[in-house]
């Protein structure tokens, strides 16, 4: 059997698989997780960060550089600045 035929068969197999992914799963509701009254609390608590994960919120951060400048200037204090491409206090 020549290589070209094998490649053609592979292409036939791979093509429909990728096409299926390209169209996304069927639109009959989620399949991988079942949200019900019985599972609500458990799923919620899996998503919501615990106290350790939110420990950085114990610092009284201000939401903008500008707020830090104003407060530092008025109270004669240095400014601790944490900068990321996304907002460090929200979506990074």
């Amino acid at each position, binding site marked *: 059997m020549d290589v070209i035929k094998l490649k053609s068969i592979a292409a036939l197999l791979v093509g429909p698989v990728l096409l299926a*992914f390209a169209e996304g*799963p069927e639109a009959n509701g989620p399949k991988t997780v079942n949200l019900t009254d019985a599972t609500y609390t458990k799923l919620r608590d899996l998503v919501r*960060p615990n106290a350790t994960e939110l420990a950085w919120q114990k610092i009284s951060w201000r*939401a903008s550089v500008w707020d830090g400048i104003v407060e530092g200037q008025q109270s004669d204090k*240095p400014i*601790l600045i944490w*900068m990321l491409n996304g*907002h460090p206090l929200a979506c990074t």
Partner: protein
Amino acid sequence: MADQLDHLYNGTDFESRFVQKIKKQSHPDNYSYQGIYLAAPNGVLLAGSHEALHDAKKVEKLVQQGLEKWKKLSPTDRLLAKEVFAKAVAERGDGGRLKLYPEDGLVLRLFCRDLPGAPEPKDANHRNLWNMDYAWFRKEEAIAFVPVTPTLGKNYAVRRELVERLARFHLIDAVRGSGLSYPKEAVAEANLTAEVVEVTDAFVSLRFQGATRTSQTGKFFTQNTVGSAWKVPEVQSRGYDTKLMGRAVYHRKDQKFISFELLAAGDRWGATSENGRVSDGEVCLRPAPMGVFLELAGNRPGERVPPVNLRHYGWK
């Protein structure tokens, strides 16, 4: 304070110039502005580092070094001259980006995370990740979650545009990165029902149920090669198919929610330049469980961060 950088790189206002000055003093040869800095209000850098960002001990040392330097500066050397500060305040005007914060509306904080059953990330840095954001609703929008004349046991449909906003801008795959919102035409389903479970003169208690489905086919990945093992299909599908459940209590006299929670749980799929899924290989194209949870935010200054997709709300 903490802030995001994208509007500060090339800005020309006082705040942007301040950030650019700090970065230049800290690490002029590194392109990245990301870092931890201790600065005087006049923009003199006391200590700063890009590398210390993920190391608490390095940050502690950096702060100590900066405070030592601060003590050696006179007020004249660390504060802005009065006229310079006054000019900056005048330039700032009515509050910049944060002026849209809905003081009398509904502010939710949101968390997203993969749920059990999701494929184990191949990259160790992607394990146990979660992300957060805020969702804002103005007063008239917040009130729209509550029936005008609530009757015990009755179901009411929440305005579709509000559910659609959640689906497009907040029920997104941001677990590993800031996520990519959906266009209006990607929303196949967006419904939320509020059932009245208790009514008194003071309060209305609601139970939420609903579903959303966003699905979009297109080119979402700009860096197409991952190692040599796998390439993202040029055209692929991405989406998030959810069930929604939640509950809330509304204070009728104050016209505000005193509690609010909403959980979206469902299947996400697809790889984008933003969602960091591509390193898992083609499994990232298949449905995998992800949850998004929204709850009432507090009113501390650090909780007034604008939603990452606020610019798409259409608010002015």
